[in-house]
């Protein structure tokens, strides 16, 4: 299934997790839980040592995953080991793509990604201006290249991006970095309005943390929602609870129950809430969205 197809049956729910956070095995379970919770596409983060576009939540996930031994090679194994059927998007920084394989350049990475079943990429530090080599490799191997459109992206820049984007466009809901927020940004509506005319699915991300957010955003016209930090928060809490438990075990023998299965269940629950919110939002949309 291609990325665009995932938007065919109503709003797409696109969760993000960092692969290997906090360890390989748990992470496999967590990602699979997202599919059970209703994910239509999954964004899998391949952690980079300098995640300049991430807020603290995902920064910490990156640190955990790197400490757990995640590498590009392990990442591809991870994807192969995953038992999910929805399309997977690899989210990572350009240097890892560029350095993979024997020769600098994106082609070996893309080839390998294609071979393990990745459908597309999001590369936060690769603006349209610098994306040609990656774009070409993606074309060669039939992968999509998702671009981010920020609240500040307008005019010519916007056109240049929309010409190149495929799969879906990642609409950044607010300025700043990733991170769960308690409200929905007003910037979202105007961003969506700016790109309403382009014929590509529009998925909104950055800061969505509840079913209610999801509903509002889809009602405003988004074709999908992308949720990262709110989910990563669950992994982080589970991890620190598990660490706590380990020391508690020694001290009190008390079991807090934050085993990977419990975390996976909570992920599934939040996923479902978000997916349901998106569905409700879609059902409330004006019947004929004005697309000229």
């Amino acid at each position, binding site marked *: 299934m291609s990325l665009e197809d995932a938007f065919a049956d109503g709003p797409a729910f696109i969760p993000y997790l960092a692969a290997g956070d906090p360890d390989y095995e748990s992470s496999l379970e967590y990602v699979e839980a997202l599919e059970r919770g209703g994910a239509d596409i999954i964004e899998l983060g391949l952690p980079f040592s300098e995640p300049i576009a991430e807020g603290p939540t995902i920064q*910490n996930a990156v640190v955990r995953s790197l400490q757990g031994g995640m*590498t*590009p090679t392990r990442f591809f194994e991870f994807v192969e080991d995953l038992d999910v059927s929805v399309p997977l998007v690899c989210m990572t920084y350009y*240097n890892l793509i560029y350095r*993979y394989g024997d020769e600098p350049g994106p082609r070996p990475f893309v080839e390998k990604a294609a071979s393990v079943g990745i459908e597309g990429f999001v590369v936060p530090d690769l*603006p349209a201006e610098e994306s040609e080599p990656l774009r070409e490799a993606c074309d060669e191997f039939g992968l999509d290249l998702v671009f981010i459109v920020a609240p*500040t992206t*307008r005019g010519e820049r916007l056109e240049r991006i929309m010409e190149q984007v495929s799969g879906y466009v990642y609409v950044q809901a607010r300025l700043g*970095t990733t991170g769960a927020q308690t409200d929905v940004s007003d910037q979202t509506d105007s961003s969506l309005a700016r790109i309403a005319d382009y014929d590509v699915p529009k998925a909104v991300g950055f800061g969505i943390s509840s079913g209610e957010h999801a509903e509002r955003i889809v009602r405003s016209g988004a074709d999908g929602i992308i949720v990262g930090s709110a989910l990563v928060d669950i992994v982080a809490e589970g991890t620190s609870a598990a660490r706590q438990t380990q020391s508690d075990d020694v001290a009190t023998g008390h079991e807090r129950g934050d085993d990977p299965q419990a975390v996976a269940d909570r992920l599934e629950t939040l996923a479902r809430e978000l997916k349901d919110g998106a569905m409700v939002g879609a059902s409330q949309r004006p019947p004929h969205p004005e697309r000229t």
Partner: protein
Amino acid sequence: MSVDGKFGEFGGQYVPEALMPAIEELEDAYERYVLNNEDGFMDEFRTRLRDFGGRPTPLQRADRLSERYGREVYLKREDLVHGGAHKLNNALGQVLLAKYMGKERIIAETGAGQHGTATAMACAHLDMPCEIYMGERDINRQRPNVFRMKLNGSEVNPVTVGRGTLKEAISETMRDWATNVEDTHYVIGSVVGPHPFPSMVRDFQSVISEEARTQAQEKLGRLPDSVLACAGGGSNTMGAFAEFVSDDEVGLYAVEAGGSTLEVDEDAGVAPNSASLTTGSEGILHGARTTILQDHDGQIMESHSISSGLDYAGVGPELAHLVDIDRVTAVNVGDDDALTAFHRLSQLEGIIPALETAHAFGYLEAVAGPDATDETDALGEFVVVNVSGRGDKDLESAIEETYERDIDIAPNMDEFTGGL
């Protein structure tokens, strides 16, 4: 000069989309104000550099070094710039540019605190609110500089992620910028980052070589045979080289920090040096394609140097390019030799250099000193060394590090073992 932001294969703009409009705005401002002196920007910049910054700095004959090395050794005295290093040339330029652009807030990263203090000074001078990001570990190592920034009215924001050093502070500042891009200018501290930063910072710093070139002509009636400068990100290097790049007869030497060894521990992700030009490889870091210290997978390595200002895993793309095309010779000097050079310059010339700067003198000693073998000596008869900064900020480190090593020319420092 590159206006498209590429230096051969290096450079570019690898930043989050949210920043691109700001970067385009900056590119535009760079072209108008810096390159075309619109509204007399460059005139005001040069005037302020002179009156506030203390330019021109002298090109001084180092009598005792000249004797030691059997040639004319001249010092370009950037240590005399207000704040004690070349850093102000850039900070003042960028803060002034931000004012011309109508920005209302300045942010900057700092490692050793030199760029931070320079930016804080420029902001006080130009009445701009300023926040500086600094790794928590650096904050603890460089408390006097933290205090100076606060005295100048800047806020200092501790960065606790990762190791809490420069690399993390840069990432954090980029995040702030991505959040507040509309009213905020990010003053990058070296010739690194996305275009137009590398070109713009070079242009602000090139006053160094502009002056040095004229001064060399005045003093010796000719151009130097070689110019030496230490390279962290490479701003004092590019500043000292820029006007000589087209003078093919002038040898240009970028001296990186060799740290404790040039060997690299890939598995631990640690390079015990910051000699990116020698031990690094091509990659993308902090917005630009350039030469960086990275492991096989492309993860950035922890660098190391006795001098925190050189302790950075990358180098400016233009410098990487000039090395690539063999116009600049990349060399390096280890911690021990840099420290020895620190003491030697203090004793022979009455100039206590920054530990960063000491690396450049360490190279001079290696090539032309009493223990050097002749064949490596291509520096020629007239050598200019860029004294990028003064060492007052490094007194504590000098005590600690001298104590750990056996630097035979160091003064007896027993009474300072406990620090200052």
